[in-house]
């Protein structure tokens, strides 16, 4: 049953067609990888689906409702959460605050509750802190909890972003290059976390260039080229597909 689908998406930037009729459907519980040469439109596709930009044409459907052009915060609250390719950390906040921020439904985020310091605010804040600490421990960031996230290494930032998104308890997790700039050991760790999340029911879509780890991880591979889906299938079939090899050699990686 399709949980997330994009249908006929078109997006132009100043005369350049970044996405040119893209359609893809993802079922609940899938672990999908998205690959393609540079400029194929992978991040733009993510941006169109997650509401960061509005497609010129086409529709995005999530959990049975059309959500084309809905703002990112609405989608995040409904369980569709994404990370960013260039790690956009909240650099002027500590690791702890980064994670605590993401918790949904905090009464303390509303004016009156904050001013009056209501009991529900205090109780929720306590549980948010506990959960945040647990997540930090899981991703082994607890020793860095009070560091400003701007001081973290590339790999640590990726882990932080993962921890942060998990606070939202997403149904669909969209990861944009989670292994980029991360050392091999950490890459395997992150892959392991992702596998576990998927086994527990989370739908995951991953953009990556790191083909080795990705192909071992995912059940399905979607290849984009020039803003369109080129091939869509199981990793081994896709990678041995001649068109895919040509796309990478022709378009340049």
């Amino acid at each position, binding site marked *: 049953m399709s949980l997330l689908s994009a249908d006929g998406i078109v997006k132009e930037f100043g005369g350049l067609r970044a996405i040119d009729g893209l359609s893809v459907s993802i079922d609940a519980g899938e672990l999908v990888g998205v690959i393609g040469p540079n400029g194929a439109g992978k991040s733009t596709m993510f941006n169109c689906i997650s509401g960061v930009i509005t497609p010129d044409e086409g529709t995005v459907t999530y959990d049975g409702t059309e959500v084309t052009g809905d703002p990112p915060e609405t989608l995040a609250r409904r369980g569709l959460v994404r990370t960013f390719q260039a790690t956009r950390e909240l650099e002027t906040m500590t690791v702890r605050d980064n994670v605590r*921020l993401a918790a949904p439904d905090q009464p*303390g985020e509303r004016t009156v509750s*904050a001013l009056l310091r209501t009991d529900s605010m205090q109780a929720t*804040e306590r549980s948010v802190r506990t959960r945040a600490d647990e997540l930090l421990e899981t991703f082994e960031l607890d020793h860095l909890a009070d560091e400003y996230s701007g001081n973290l290494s590339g790999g640590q930032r990726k882990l932080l972003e993962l921890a942060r998104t998990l606070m939202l308890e997403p149904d669909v997790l969209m990861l944009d290059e989670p292994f980029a700039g991360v050392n091999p050991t950490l890459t395997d760790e992150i892959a392991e976390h992702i596998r576990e999340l998927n086994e527990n029911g989370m739908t995951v879509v991953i953009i990556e260039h790191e083909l080795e780890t990705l192909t071992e991880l995912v059940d399905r591979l979607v290849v984009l080229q020039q803003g369109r889906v080129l091939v869509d299938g199981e990793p081994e079939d896709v990678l041995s597909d001649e068109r895919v090899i040509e796309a990478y050699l022709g378009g340049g990686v």
Partner: protein
Amino acid sequence: MSALDRIPSGNGDLALLAGVFCFLIGGLFVLTPLQVQLPNMFYVFVEVGILFVIYGLLVLGLDLQYGHTGLVNFGHVAFFAVGAYGTAMLSAQDTFVGIGLGYPWPLALGVGVVAAAVVGLGVSATSIRLRGDFLAIVTLATAEILHSIFVNFEGVFGGNVGILGVPRPIAALVSQADTRLIATLLVLGGITLVGLAGVTRLTSAPYGRVLRAIRADELVTRSVGKSTVTYKTQAFVYGAALAGLAGGLFALYNGAVAPGFFTIQVTVTVWIGMLLGGAANHRAVLAGLSIIMGIRLVSRFALTVTPVPSDVFASIRLVVVGLILVAVIRYRPAGIWGDAQELGVDR
């Protein structure tokens, strides 16, 4: 849990206590025949002190807008003016020119605050999405437009003379000059401390976390499910309301409002105070403001001892103030007490 952990408690409560205490003591002086003798030389201190606590509300509002949420508001004096004029026009009894409706001052004060908040809402509804320096220009232009309107529509706003005959509640109840001054300082100071408590509570709660996240990266904050436009609008309106309150209180203290009290100088003074002290730290911005006001105090003192004309001193003071702003941005962008990492200026 480390010391950096901001648990909702702490200095907000102290400020609240101190504020209520000051307010009550001040109230005591107002309502009872209790008197105070003030040596002449302290007069200037208390007068500048009163201006300081009024401006203190301005700087707290600005800190909420810029220090916490990253909104560059360079027209803050506009909200100050709207609150002042609103309160004045509703309560003035015998103004020479302009409108004075003679309503009771508590009502007028409330209207003044609401009016400032509404103007703040209007500005933020239209401009909140603008890039930092463009937002600065829009807010600055708005303040200039308002100033121009106040000066030019003489029949309504009293032109350069302004609105006179605004009731002075404390002065009306206290005849002895020294006591009046001290009572005013305590009452207004108490209100500012309560304002400090309120703003601190807001920003030390998860609410403040969202504001700081918006300042850090708005897109990421939206991606974790927060409606950033709502928060930015709220921060802007709350800041405007605080400025409006300051304006209304000023009107009721001064007994009159005129365009000369609401120039860009006020905005600049408050900005420099905030940046010098350390934006995003409420106590620090008040401390920074006190330094700037202290310079004003020193120049007022020096005026009495040197044979230099007062406008020369004003110019010297302004040269110093301008250079302080330049120096702070260049050498200590986080201010004296601010946290460089918090503000992202640690390079």
